[in-house]
C-alpha cells in the first residue's frame, strides 16, 4: 500500500521582510567605521599638525606661504636643539624623577587602602571608600588655592618635590577606586583559604591579591603615570625657576619669551614629551582596558 502525502496550503499572514542578520551586521560595521572615522580625524588633527610644524624651520612657519599642512624643507633641527639643550634635559629629568616617585607613592597608598577597604571589615569602611572616591570629584582648579597656602607654609614653594605632595591628591583617589573594584571582584573564598593556610593579611596582599589583581594594578599605574606626566596646572602655579620645572610647564616658559613663540621647538618639545605615555599605552593598552572594565563589571 503506498502512502500519499497530502499537503494543504493554509492561509499565512505575509511576513515583514526583516533582512538577514549578516546584512544587519555589515550595516552596523560600516556605520561604526564612519562614526569612528569622524572621531579619528577630529582627535588626530592636532598631533598631526604638531608633527608637521615640528619639522619646519622658524622661517617656514612664520613665512605663511604654501599649505600649513605641507613641509617645504623638513628638518630635525628643532628636535636636536631641544635634546642638546640643558634646560630641556633638566625638565625631562625632573618629570621622570617626580613621575616615578609619584607613581610609586600612589600605588603604595592605593593598594594598601583598597585592600583594607575592600577586604577587611571594619566600622566605617564603606563610608571611607565612598569618601575617597568623592575627593576625586573636586576639581584641581579649586584645590590649588588652599594647596598654595599649604605648600607655602611647608616651605616647598618653587621646589620640584612639592609635586610629590600635590600629584597624589589627584591620582590616589581614582587609583584607590579602581583597586577597590578589582579587589572586590576577587572571590572571598581566596581570603578564607589563605587565612586557613596561615597567611597574615600582609602575606595575603603580597602573595595572592597583588599577583591576581595585576591587570588592575597595571591599569592604575598607567593612570597615575598619565596624571603625573601630563599635569600642567600645579607645576604652573608652584614652580618658577627653570631648574625646578618639569616638562609640561618648562616647554612653555622656556620657549615662549614675551610675545616670541618658538613654534617649531614648542611642537617638537610637546611631541617628545608625549612619547613616553604613548609608548606605555602602546604596550599596555590591553591591560589598561581589561583592568578598568574587569573591575567595573565584576565589582
Amino acid at each position, binding site marked *: 500500500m503506498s502512502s500519499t502525502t497530502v499537503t494543504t496550503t493554509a492561509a499565512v499572514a505575509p511576513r515583514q521582510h526583516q533582512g538577514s542578520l549578516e546584512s544587519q551586521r555589515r550595516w552596523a560595521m560600516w556605520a561604526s567605521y564612519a562614526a569612528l572615522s569622524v572621531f579619528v580625524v577630529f582627535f588626530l588633527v592636532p598631533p598631526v599638525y604638531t608633527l608637521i610644524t615640528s619639522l619646519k624651520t622658524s622661517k617656514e612657519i612664520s613665512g605663511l606661504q604654501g599649505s600649513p599642512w605641507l613641509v617645504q624643507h623638513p628638518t630635525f633641527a628643532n628636535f636636536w636643539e631641544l635634546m642638546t639643550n640643558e634646560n630641556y634635559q633638566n625638565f625631562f629629568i625632573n618629570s621622570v624623577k617626580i613621575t616615578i616617585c609619584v607613581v610609586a607613592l600612589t600605588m603604595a597608598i592605593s593598594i594598601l587602602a583598597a585592600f583594607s577597604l575592600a577586604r577587611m571589615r571594619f566600622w566605617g569602611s564603606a563610608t571611607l571608600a565612598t569618601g575617597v572616591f568623592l575627593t576625586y570629584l573636586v576639581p584641581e582648579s579649586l584645590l590649588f588655592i588652599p594647596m598654595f597656602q599649604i605648600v607655602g607654609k611647608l616651605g616647598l614653594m618653587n621646589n620640584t618635590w612639592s609635586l610629590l605632595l600635590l600629584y597624589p591628591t589627584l591620582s590616589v583617589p581614582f587609583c584607590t577606586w579602581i583597586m577597590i573594584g578589582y579587589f572586590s571582584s576577587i*572571590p572571598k*573564598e*581566596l581570603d*578564607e*583559604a*589563605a*587565612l*586557613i*593556610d*596561615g*597567611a597574615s593579611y600582609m*602575606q595575603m596582599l603580597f*602573595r*595572592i591579591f597583588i*599577583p*591576581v589583581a595585576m591587570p588592575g594594578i597595571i591599569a592604575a599605574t598607567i593612570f597615575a603615570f598619565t596624571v603625573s606626566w601630563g599635569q600642567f596646572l600645579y607645576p604652573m602655579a608652584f614652580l618658577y625657576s627653570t631648574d625646578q620645572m618639569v616638562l609640561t610647564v618648562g616647554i612653555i616658559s622656556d620657549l615662549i619669551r614675551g610675545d616670541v613663540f618658538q613654534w617649531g621647538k614648542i611642537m617638537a618639545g610637546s611631541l617628545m614629551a608625549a612619547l613616553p605615555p604613548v609608548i606605555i599605552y602602546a604596550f599596555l593598552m590591553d591591560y589598561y582596558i581589561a583592568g578598568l572594565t574587569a573591575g567595573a563589571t565584576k565589582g
Partner: protein
Amino acid sequence: MAQVSIRKVVKMYEGDVQAVKGIDLEINDHEFVVLVGPSGCGKSTTLRMIAGLEEITAGEISIGGDVVNDVPPRDRDIAMVFQNYALYPHMSVFDNMAFGLKLRKFPREEIKRRVDEAAGILDITELLLRKPKALSGGQRQRVAMGRAIVRNPKVFLFDEPLSNLDAKLRVQMRTEIKLVHQKVNTTTVYVTHDQIEAMTLADRVVVMNHGVIEQVGPPQELYHHPATRFVAGFIGSPAMNFLPCRVVQHGDGLAVRVSDTITLPITPERRDRYAPYKDKAMTFGLRPEHLVEYRDNAKQGVTRMDAMVDVVEPMGMETMVHFHTIGEQMCARIDPNAYAAPNEVLALNADMNNMHLLDPESGRVV
C-alpha cells in the same frame, strides 16, 4: 586526639537573625560527620565557626580538647575544602598545595615529600605543574583536597565541595572522598545539602533545620528510624509519602484510616506502641520503596492499596509511579517490568512493617 566539641553554640547576625540556635554536637576522633539540611539551616555557618571564619556569638567550640573560640583559623590546625575550590589562580598546582607549608616555613624537601604523597593519593601527580585554569572541575577539587591533605591537620572541613560538579562527576568524587578518608583517617566535618551524599559518606549524619539539630545518627538509623517529620521527609529519595490519617480500631487490632476507601491494618507488633493514639488525627508516613506492585503472596504486614496513576517515570532499574490520594501527591517504586499507565488504577502493596506514624502537632515520629 582530634575530637570536635560544639557546646551550646549560637550565631546571631545583625538584625537579631539567629542562624544557629544553641546546638550541641560531639564529633569523635577519626569520625566522618556530615551536616546536612536545606539552604539556610545553619550548617555552613556551623562549619565556618569551627574553622574560625565566623565569630561565635555564644557557646564554645573545642578542637582536640582546646577551646578555640578566640583562636585564629591559622592556629586551629584545620584544613578546609571550599565549594568553588578557592585555588590560587596565579600559582601552579604544586604551589597551591605547598602554600600553607611554605608559610609555616617547612623545609623544601619536606614540602616536596608531602605534596608528592598527597598528589599520589589523589592521582594528580601529572598535574603538578599546571595552573588551575588548565584543570577540569574534578581535577580542581582534587587539588583543593590535596592542599588540605598536605597540612596533615587535626580536622578536615568540607563546605559543599561537590556542588559545582556535574551529576556523574559528583558520584565519582564522592567515592574518592570516601577512599581518601579511609586512607588518611582524619576527623572530617562535611557540609552538604544533598542527602544522598550524606547517606553514602557519613559515619554519622547531623540533620539541621532552621538553626537547630533535628537528629544525629548513623545513616541507616536516620533512614529507618527518623525522629521528626522533617528528617523523615528529608532523608531518602524520593521523599517519604505523608498522609493525614486517624488510628482506628480494626478487628482485634488497629489500623490507619486514610479515607473511607483506604484503611491499612497496623501490624500486631506495633499495636501497643500506637494504642495511645487511637482515634487521634495523626500523619501516616511510608517510603516509596515500601509501596510496590501488588502480589498475591505478599508477606505478613503487607496490605493492598489501589491508586489512580498520574505519571509513570521509568528509571531503568525501577519505575516511579506518581499518584494522588485524598488530594495528597504520593509516589510508589515498582518493578521496571510491572505494568502501570497514567489514568489507570494500579494495585499496590503497602508494607506496613515499615510504616511511620507522626504526631502532626509536634512533628515527631511516635
